[in-house]
């Protein structure tokens, strides 16, 4: 990689050994991918994936302290993934005890995040791009982000440019204020090497469709045809929420960092099928293919017939619209089955600021009357607790299913579970 004089000086140690190691890491990272230069991070804020002060993650804390001690902090404010704990989410005595031990470094770690450049005390969410939080990059902005669901959203729905950076690497880019220019930052890297032909009879569950795409294309860029006819051609709140959930599944079940939806996402609207590489492969998704994918998910509950003890909705975090929508759907489903409260303890998760706004609405009272808990926790971090992992947990999140023992159901099935106690 060709470095400027200033970059070379940092690498040589002009600003200390720690910053030299940060630069060395970024240069090696860029060299692997054939980057010829570094480019400035132009987005106003960063986003970090590591939000949890796990006691076994001492290496990360040690590294962060080295950065802080050396004054190598972020040159821009950043948001970060959700907190791992919330006392409002159901947990028994033993589970709570384990949480305290597991995340014993949380307060210490949050102090480090604040020293490194955390935007605010409530900037903990995987959906930092919601209006209520305000970390919304503009089209074309170069970012140094991590969190697979946020990266794929920023690239695909907002048209910003970020590679799928790993935790720590994303912070290094924000510290230096520059990132190696390769992959999804380049026009060529944003062209599609897969065409996904959607031929389903109706709009599929977002996280099932995303799972099928991710499992097939892995880290490649897909160009999706046929979704706009089911979802519409306007990038409104409903479409954004759908693409948020679909993208999270493409990124966790595979490694997708960018997708284009014909007639809907910004670059597909702007450039159309010129985004497709001539040698692109084709993946046809119909009802049978989605059924096959869903059937392939392993179930690792000790007792496959166990009655669910908890349900998580909101991985990634729900938007305000989704909170209202779920409240209405659940209310109708309970009324139809003659119940007043959910049949399975249920947690809806959303960003702190989204949650705060929702709590001021009438629907919040409706939701709590149905005994649904509203939290800003990270469900994945909750499920990391070995005693929670043993529990039969259901979810509509294919991301949560991928990383934990939770069982995936689509929204309709979840509604039946919550209103009727089974499907």
């Amino acid at each position, binding site marked *: 990689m060709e470095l400027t004089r200033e970059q070379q000086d940092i690498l040589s140690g002009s600003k200390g050994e720690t910053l030299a*190691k940060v630069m*060395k*890491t970024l240069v*090696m*990272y860029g060299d*692997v*991918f054939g980057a010829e230069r570094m480019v400035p991070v132009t987005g106003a804020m960063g986003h970090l*994936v*590591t939000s949890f002060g*796990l006691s*076994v*993650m*001492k*290496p*990360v804390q040690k*590294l962060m302290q080295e950065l802080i001690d050396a004054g190598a902090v972020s040159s821009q404010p950043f948001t970060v993934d959700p907190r791992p704990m919330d006392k409002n989410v159901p947990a028994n005595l033993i589970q709570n005890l384990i949480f305290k031990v*597991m995340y014993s470094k949380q307060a210490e770690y949050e102090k480090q995040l604040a020293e490194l450049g955390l935007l605010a005390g409530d900037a903990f969410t995987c959906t930092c791009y919601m209006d209520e939080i305000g970390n919304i990059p503009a089209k074309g902005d170069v970012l140094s982000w*991590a*969190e*697979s669901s946020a*990266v794929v959203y920023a690239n695909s729905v907002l048209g910003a440019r970020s*590679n*799928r*950076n*790993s*935790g*720590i*690497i*994303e912070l290094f880019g924000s510290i230096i204020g520059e990132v190696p220019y390769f*992959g999804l930052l380049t026009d060529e890297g944003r062209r599609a090497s897969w065409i996904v032909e959607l031929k389903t009879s109706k709009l599929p569950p977002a996280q099932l469709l995303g799972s099928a795409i*991710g499992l097939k294309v*892995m*880290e490649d860029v897909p160009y999706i045809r046929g979704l706009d006819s089911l979802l519409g051609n306007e990038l409104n709140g409903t479409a954004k929420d759908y693409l948020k959930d679909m993208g999270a599944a493409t*990124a*966790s*079940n*595979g*490694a997708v960092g960018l997708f284009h939806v014909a007639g809907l996402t910004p670059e597909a609207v702007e450039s159309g099928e010129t985004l497709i590489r001539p040698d692109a492969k084709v993946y046809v998704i119909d009802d049978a293919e989605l059924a096959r994918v869903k059937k392939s*998910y*392993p179930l*690792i509950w000790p007792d496959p017939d166990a009655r669910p003890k908890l349900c998580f909705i909101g991985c990634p975090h729900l938007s305000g619209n989704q909170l209202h929508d779920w409240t209405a759907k659940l209310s109708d489903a309970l009324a139809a089955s003659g119940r007043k409260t959910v049949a399975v303890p249920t947690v809806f998760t959303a960003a702190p600021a989204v949650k705060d706004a929702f709590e001021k609405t009438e629907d919040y009272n409706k939701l709590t009357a149905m005994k649904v808990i509203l939290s800003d926790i990270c469900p994945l971090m909750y499920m*990391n607790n*070995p005693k929670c992992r043993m529990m039969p947990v259901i979810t509509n999140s294919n991301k949560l299913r*991928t*990383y934990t*023992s939770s069982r995936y159901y689509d929204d309709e099935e979840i509604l039946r579970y919550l209103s009727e106690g089974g499907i």
Partner: protein
Amino acid sequence: MRTFHGRPVVPGSAKAEALVSHAGFNTLASFQKSLMSGDKKATCSDQNNADLYGKPMFGKALCMPQTIGSTTGGMVMYCASQLGQQAACLLFSGPIDSLAAAGAILSDVWTDVHMPTVDNLGPGFLDFVKTGMTVTVEEDGTVMVDDGK
């Protein structure tokens, strides 16, 4: 014995038993349980990876097409290295992905662990290498797989 030539992402030499994943290696899902429990054998906890689930990863020559999943991937690999749960080497049939590259580089620059990493070994590599075979990695990216014949 068959020899493959790849690109040394983190050059180095190693000799270890192969552990082969034909599907994308989900770093977080694979290491999550062992990091949490302090399992020094680093037993793979990815329920979606039939090739690796339940098998120890520590000290193995981890052979895969690429890594997938959460962007904590590189950081998880760095933690595994710092906590003594790392693979002996990482071997990729195709081009390395950004998360695996981050993990290999962070381990190289910020830890004392040396985990040679080679990519672009070709699709034939994963067709040939089987879990349990002995793999030898050389500085220049040469990988020799001993199938006992």
